[in-house]
C-alpha cells in the first residue's frame, strides 16, 4: 500500500517515539507521508503504517504506552473489516464510517494545530503591543459608615435585660441534698449502727447549721430512711408528732 520510501522516515520515527503526543499525533505524522489531503487519506494505508510502526517498536524492545497499543488493536480490527467484504449480519457502524471518523479526527487535530500556530503568531501583549507603562492608581475609596440609632442601642440593651429576666430557672444544686445522695450515705452508715439513734445525728457535716441546707438534708434523709424501712433494712420510731425520729438496723 504505502510507497517504499516511507520506510526511511518510519525508522526515524521509531527512535523518536517519545516525541509523540499520543497515537493520534503519531497517525497524523504518518499520514503526512501520504502527501494527500487528510480528507482523502487512505485509512487502510495509515493503519498498515501504524501497525508496522508498532511492530518495529516491539522488535526494538521499545516500550509503548498503553494507548498506542489500544490504537494498534483498534486499527488492526478496522483493517480486517476494511479488507473483508461487509458482513450483513454484523451490527453497528460500517468500517467505512469508522474510517471516515478517524480521517475526521486527524483533520480536526491538524486544524487545531494550525489554529494554535496562528494564535501564537498573533501580536502578543508585552511583546508586540503594550499597556500603559506608568498606570495611575484608580483609587476606590470605600468608606464604611456604621449605622446604629439610639433605638438600636436601646433595643439591644432591652434584649440583654430581657434575656436576664427570662434566664431559665437553674436548679440550685449547692443547697439541695437529694434523696439518692441520702440513700447512698445511709446505706454506708447502717453497718456501723448499734442502738437507736436520732436521725439528726446522721446529717452530713455542713448541713446542720444553715436552715435551708438543714431542711433539705433532713428531708432527703427522712425520705431515705422511709425507703430503707420499706425494704426492711431499718426500724423507725417516733414518740409523738414533731418528736425526734430514731432509727436502728433491723434485726439488732
Amino acid at each position, binding site marked *: 500500500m504505502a510507497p517504499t520510501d516511507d520506510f526511511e522516515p518510519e525508522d526515524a520515527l521509531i527512535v523518536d517515539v517519545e516525541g509523540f503526543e499520543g497515537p493520534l499525533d503519531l497517525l497524523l505524522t504518518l499520514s503526512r507521508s501520504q502527501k494527500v489531503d487528510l480528507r482523502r487519506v487512505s485509512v487502510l494505508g495509515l493503519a498498515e503504517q501504524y501497525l508496522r510502526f508498532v511492530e518495529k517498536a516491539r522488535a526494538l524492545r521499545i516500550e509503548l504506552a498503553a494507548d498506542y497499543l489500544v490504537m494498534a488493536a483498534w486499527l488492526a480490527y478496522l483493517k480486517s473489516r476494511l479488507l473483508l467484504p461487509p458482513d450483513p449480519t454484523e451490527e453497528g457502524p460500517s468500517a467505512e464510517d469508522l474510517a471516515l471518523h478517524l480521517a475526521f479526527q486527524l483533520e480536526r487535530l491538524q486544524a487545531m494545530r494550525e489554529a494554535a500556530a496562528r494564535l501564537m503568531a498573533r501580536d502578543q501583549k508585552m511583546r508586540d503591543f503594550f499597556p500603559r507603562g506608568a498606570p495611575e492608581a484608580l483609587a476606590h475609596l470605600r468608606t464604611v459608615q456604621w449605622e446604629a440609632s439610639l433605638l438600636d442601642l*436601646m433595643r439591644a440593651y432591652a434584649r440583654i435585660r430581657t434575656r436576664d429576666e427570662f434566664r431559665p430557672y437553674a436548679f440550685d444544686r449547692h443547697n439541695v441534698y437529694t434523696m439518692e445522695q441520702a440513700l447512698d450515705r445511709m446505706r454506708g452508715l447502717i453497718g456501723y449502727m448499734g442502738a437507736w439513734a436520732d436521725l439528726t445525728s446522721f446529717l452530713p457535716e455542713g448541713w446542720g447549721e444553715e436552715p435551708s441546707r438543714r431542711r433539705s438534708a433532713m428531708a432527703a434523709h427522712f425520705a431515705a430512711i422511709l425507703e430503707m424501712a420499706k425494704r426492711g433494712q431499718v426500724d423507725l420510731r417516733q414518740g409523738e408528732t414533731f418528736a425526734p425520729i430514731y432509727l436502728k438496723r433491723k434485726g439488732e
Partner: protein
Amino acid sequence: MSQDPIEKSLFEAPPIAEQERMIEAILFAVAEPLTMAEISARLPEGCDAAEAMVYLRKRYEGRGVHLVRVGDAYAFRTAPDLGHLMRKETVEPRKLSRAAIETLAIIAYHQPVTRAEIEEIRGVAVSRGTVDLLLELDWIRLGRRRMTPGRPVTFVVTEAFLDHFGLESARDLPGIKELRAAGLLDSRPLPGQPETPDDEDEVESPGQTELFED
C-alpha cells in the same frame, strides 16, 4: 519636513507623522518620563524627535491626557482638571453587628465597665474585633483602671458617641422602666418577684453588686 531628499534616502527617516506616532507609543508604554535623548535613541535613524514632539504635544492639548515636561523629560499625565476621576469615593452604610451594638449598649448603660463585666452581662465572650471596631469608631474609649486585682481597664462612651446618638450624657439613656413603657422590654416579672424589677433592685442583685463595687 526639514529633511532634504538626500538625507531622507540616506537614513530613510519615517515621515514626521509617523515619528509622532512612535513617540506617542513610547511615552505611553514606558514607565518613566523619557528625555529627548532617550526618545531619540529609540527612534530610527534620522528622526527629529524634538520636532515630532512639538506636534504630539499640540495634539494632546486640551485632551484628557496631556504630554507634559517633567524636568528634562516627557511623560503623559492625566489632565489636572480630571484628577478627581481617578478617585472614586463611596460610602457604604453597614449595620453594626448584634455583638457590637450590645457591647456598646452595655458600656453606655454601665460605664465604666470592664471587659469581664461586659462578658458577664452578655453571657458570651466579647471578641477583640468588636471592641476594636467601637474604639475605632470613637464611640468608646478606655476609662480609668478598676482598682481591683489585675487593675483591669474599663470602657466608657465618648463625646462622639453622645453626639452620634443625640444624647447630652449617658445618664439620659432611658432606664429599664422607660424601655418597658416604650414596649422595648416586654418581660413579665417572674412569679414571686416584686412588680417593679427596674434599675433600682437591679443594683441590689448579686450580679450587679459584684459588677459595680469599685
